[in-house]
């Protein structure tokens, strides 16, 4: 059973949420659950508030970042991107894309100047942004599978961006 971060925060289950609205809701609920308000309560009440508060913190972390929000929507829709399971796990990208990812690494290894690395970085970053936008559009249209496919590509691209940044140091 997946915890529903949207239900936890009383927010509509959708990708297109305003960051300020998420934050506002978090602060509001945090105040309601503040331990000071339960000083006179029973130990069961105090414990329940603490548990609610910890669930709220987790939900907030999961929703404020657009990437995690999108991945959470996929999980609620039945596709868990953290799983390699053939059914219900992260979809496998095309062979052509994997070949591209290997070739991009070879380009990075051959890049000798910071300018070449930067050009490659910008290209990959643009591709990643484009995939996230595609995932957002798919989620707004209720197409979980399409969103998950775009988000998997996004993960590969992000991993590669981390490598480029590592190589620059």
């Amino acid at each position, binding site marked *: 059973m997946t915890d529903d971060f949207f239900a936890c925060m009383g927010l509509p289950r959708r990708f297109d949420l305003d960051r300020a609205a998420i934050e506002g809701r978090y602060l509001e609920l945090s105040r309601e659950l503040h331990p000071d308000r339960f000083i006179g309560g029973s130990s069961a009440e105090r414990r329940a508030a603490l548990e609610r508060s910890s669930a709220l913190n987790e939900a907030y972390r999961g929703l404020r970042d657009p990437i995690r929000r999108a991945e959470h929507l996929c999980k609620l829709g039945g596709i868990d*991107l*953290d*799983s*390699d399971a053939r059914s219900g*796990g*992260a*979809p*496998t*990208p095309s*062979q*052509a894309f*994997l*070949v591209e*990812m*290997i070739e991009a*690494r*070879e380009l990075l290894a051959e890049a000798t100047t910071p300018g070449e690395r930067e050009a490659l970085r910008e290209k990959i970053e643009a591709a990643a942004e484009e995939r996230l936008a595609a995932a957002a559009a798919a989620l707004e249209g209720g197409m979980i599978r399409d969103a998950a496919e775009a988000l*998997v590509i996004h*993960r*590969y691209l*992000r*991993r*590669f961006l981390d*490598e480029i940044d590592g190589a620059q140091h």
Partner: protein
Amino acid sequence: MAYSDKVIQHYEQPRNVGSLDKNDESVGTGIVGAPACGDVMKLQIRVEDGVITDAKFKTYGCGSAIASSSLVTEWVKGMSVEQAMKIQNSQIAEELSLPPVKIHCSVLAEDAIKAAILDYQQKQGKPAVSAAE
């Protein structure tokens, strides 16, 4: 998480890193990815008279993924294609003492060697087809 000594050995001194000519008729190439973490692995074999005479890999991923592919390239050299096809991820995981959270790395290496063999067999079956992707 602590890596086993064997993983560290393969990670620090990986065997057989590199590429073979993917257009060569005697070379099979397998490229696989782990969608959940973004790892990619390329494993290539050269086959002469049904025996794997060379193997190379390039893996972009964690230490366990690199070690798994490095180990497989070591193992398959000198094996027949049929023997290599029988390599199981459990053997890789056991040899490297991979913890449960890293088992998927050994699965990736098994998938990669199988994909490379399949690619080689397809080339042999249809020699007229070019290696267009």
